């Protein structure tokens, strides 16, 4: 077998290996585009009703310098101090994230929807000293702060950098109408005050000093993961990991990502690694205008963004694309300027991919990655051969293999666990040497995902190792069953899990959310019988109003399983 058979499928302009780069760290990467595109609009935040605010590359650069100075010279943080950031997509996010990195500190992205115990775990585990949080989520702070090492809190408004009147109206609505502004009982500094204080302290040479000694090996971010598998662990991503992955992704897109002209819709949360690397770092580097949407749910929240801006790129997950395809305003007048869409985070269903192409007339390519790999490992080439249902080929300077239990590479077409090696693979799990040893073996990241590679070097995910259902000794992959059920007209979303069964060990159970034209369980089963082997056919189909989802919209099978288990134990208890 030829090693790396995928290299011949890179588009002509893509080199299989990245050129060595002189960029030492993320502040270097950020500086480059900040100077090159200084006057261009970098970010526009769009509220569901169309209210918006914008900042240019130059402004982002200046404000993030101020914020770095605030962290280092006002709060007195040292290099490597962890700063937790907890907010939805908004104009303050890039300033805070870049500011933390420019200060030589470590970014700890936090899901704003976390409950107090989850926040306590993440802040104590990471040893965060400072928290930057959006005020609407500050109601849990009193409980959290006392149990963690957080010493300073900076609060951010959703309307930060909006025109004065518009910002005032949003504020008024939040305070008196929707009553979403909790009283903050802990000591805190407002974001604008922090920026002003940082600006006062800043000297022309301070910025260089903050990152003195920071190399590509230095820790840049602790990105928590495991929300879908169990206890939350912090993946340590270095400056080099993120710089390389950004450049790998851009290089892989070739001419698909044009310099200085793209308008990308960022509906996925930036605190998640997919949008962080692809939308924030990647599109910032090519001088794009980033349209930030604070929350894509319900999907009608994206309507004004699509109407008011000439969106050329969209990154998303299957759930988002599917949701848009079920919105009439979207399908009846799809975005005219769209050129390409990138899907990741979870399997892109063939039925969704086909309809997306049909409705928008533009390509949608699926990729694959993990938090542990910053995240991009593979992507279908934008120009050249894309294979539907596959996660594409590895990005430049990345090796991917499918291996068996003993670590030996399996034959072409055979399923095996994906392992990967490249400059984007994390340093390890924060303060968890055992987990690190389990996951990083001889420099290879063991992903826990089962895939097959074809003779062209394209990979196809079979499923998560842990989600596999064992029916009377046969392996059933939920993805395959979900894919079939999703193709039944009237099915909006589907989640398939295995539940314990006395007879077959485990049995297949499907949870279905339907549209208004709901199919019956018999219709779904009939479709399954035509397309799946008998043992893969669900034993029961439950119709539900909603499926549990992760912040980016990934359907959480673990929660489905937990719900089933708790339902059974309640039944037994009763």
């Amino acid at each position, binding site marked *: 077998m030829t090693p790396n058979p995928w290299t011949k499928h890179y588009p002509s302009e893509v080199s299989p290996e990245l050129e060595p780069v002189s960029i030492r760290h993320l502040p270097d990467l950020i500086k480059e585009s900040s100077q090159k595109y200084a006057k261009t609009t970098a970010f526009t935040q769009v*509220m*569901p*009703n*169309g*209210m*918006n605010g914008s900042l240019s590359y130059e402004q982002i650069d200046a404000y993030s310098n101020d914020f770095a100075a605030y962290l280092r010279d006002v709060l007195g943080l040292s290099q490597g101090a962890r700063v937790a950031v907890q907010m*939805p997509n908004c104009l303050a996010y890039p300033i805070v994230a870049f500011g933390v990195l420019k200060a030589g500190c470590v970014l700890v992205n936090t899901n704003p*929807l976390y409950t107090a115990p989850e926040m306590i775990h993440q802040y104590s585990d990471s040893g965060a000293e400072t928290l930057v949080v959006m005020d*609407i989520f500050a109601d849990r702070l009193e409980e959290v702060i006392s149990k963690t090492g957080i010493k300073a809190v900076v609060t951010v408004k*959703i309307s930060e950098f909006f*025109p004065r*009147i*518009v910002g005032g*109206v*949003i504020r008024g*609505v*939040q305070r008196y109408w*929707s009553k*979403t502004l909790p009283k903050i009982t802990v000591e805190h500094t407002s974001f604008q005050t922090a920026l002003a204080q940082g600006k006062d302290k800043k000297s022309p040479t301070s910025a260089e000093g903050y990152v003195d000694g920071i190399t590509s090996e230095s820790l840049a971010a602790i990105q928590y993961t495991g929300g879908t598998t169990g206890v939350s662990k912090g993946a340590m991503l270095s400056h080099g990991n993120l710089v390389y992955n950004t450049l790998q992704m851009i290089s892989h897109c070739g001419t698909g990502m044009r310099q200085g002209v793209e308008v990308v819709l960022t509906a996925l949360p930036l605190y998640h690694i997919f949008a962080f690397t692809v939308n924030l770092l990647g599109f910032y580097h090519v001088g794009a205008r980033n349209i930030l949407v*604070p*929350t894509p*749910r*319900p999907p*009608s*929240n994206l*309507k*004004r963004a699509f*109407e*008011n801006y000439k969106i050329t790129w969209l990154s998303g997950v299957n759930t988002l694309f599917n949701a848009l395809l079920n919105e*009439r*305003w979207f399908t*009846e*007048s799809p975005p005219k300027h769209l050129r390409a869409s990138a899907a990741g985070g979870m399997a892109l269903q063939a039925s969704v991919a086909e309809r997306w192409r049909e409705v928008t007339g533009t390509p949608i390519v699926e990729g694959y990655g993990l938090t542990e790999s910053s995240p991009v490992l593979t992507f279908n080439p934008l120009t050249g051969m894309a294979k539907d249902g596959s996660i594409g080929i590895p990005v430049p300077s990345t090796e991917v293999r499918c291996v068996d239990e003993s670590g030996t590479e399996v034959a072409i077409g055979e399923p095996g666990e994906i392992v990967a090696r490249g400059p984007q693979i994390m340093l390890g799990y924060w303060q968890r040497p055992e987990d690190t040893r389990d996951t990083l073996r001889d420099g290879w990241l063991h992903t826990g995902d089962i895939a097959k590679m074809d003779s062209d070097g394209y990979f196809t995910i079979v499923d998560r190792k842990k989600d596999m259902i064992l029916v009377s000794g046969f392996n059933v992959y939920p993805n395959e069953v979900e894919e079939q059920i999703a193709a039944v007209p009237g099915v909006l979303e589907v989640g398939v899990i295995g539940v314990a069964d006395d007879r077959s060990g485990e049995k297949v159970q499907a949870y279905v959310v339907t549209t*208004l034209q*709901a199919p019956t369980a018999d219709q779904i089963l009939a479709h399954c019988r035509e397309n799946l082997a008998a043992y893969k056919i669900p034993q029961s189909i439950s119709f539900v*109003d*909603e499926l549990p989802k992760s912040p980016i919209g990934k359907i959480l099978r673990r929660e489905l399983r937990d719900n089933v288990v708790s339902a059974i134990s309640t039944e037994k208890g009763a």
Partner: protein
Amino acid sequence: MLNSLMILAAEAETQHQVVTPFEEALLAGLVFVIMFGLGSGLTPKDFKLALRRPQGLIIGWLTQFGIMPLVAYLLIVTLLFQDAIPREYAIPVALGALLMGAVPAGTTSNIFTYFSKGNLALSVVMTTNATLWAILMTPLALLFYGGLLAANNPDLEIPIRNIVLTLAILLVPVMFGMLIRRYSPNTGALLELMGGFFGLFFIVFLMVTWVPRNWNLLTSTPWQVYAVSIGLGLFGITIAYIIAKLIRVHPANARTIALETGIQNGPLAIAIITVTFSGSPALGEIMLVPAMYSLFIVIVSTIVTIFFRRANIAAEQKIPNLL
């Protein structure tokens, strides 16, 4: 007894104008702002879509232009056109009631939808859609039910041409709103928000000025007129909710469709009347149901909203919607 009350009412009315010129001007301005706000939420695409709108929104469209005029018609026949009420009084009141049933949904419905944890986006789309269709559907509904009523009441005349003209004039601020949004989405969004608030302002305005001034008129109004004014909104909401439940739409959407159907554009109906019937001696009677409807719909919607909120399980909406 009732007849003498009628005479009393008629006398009270001649002593002062039911709607003063100042109120007329204010009303016109208000409707202008409301329509301006509505336009600020639209793009030319919305018109295109409204014209070739297939299934889905047809539900809303049917409830809007199917249920409400029918409810108004049935209420008129069963309550107003009875021997207890003199025909010369019943006819102008019926005209106002029918018009109230035939106008599209108002922006106020969006506010109640919000409080009922309904689908705000759907509410906005339905209001927009109904308003655009109104230019065709309102006159058609008036012609149809007006024709039915006129069969037994030759005195009943509906100035359709004037009404169409008024509706057409109202599209001018809508166009302006669209233009503004095109060049400044922020200003557009602000105007849109203002439009919704002005709808509420209108009702407050009615309560503090119009009600005390017309107290005699209101106290001498027969109970049947009250029943029509309250029943129009209440039955509209109930019937639409039952239909939405029967066809098994999502609970949040069922609440939205119900409110959207029952809550009509009161200011629009009153504006049409003041423009079309300016100077008519029957202006006061024609105005009666729209004015009373506008007052009572706030109370009806509030009660319905409380009911909806109680029925609404918190689990329906797990993700907090930012703004």
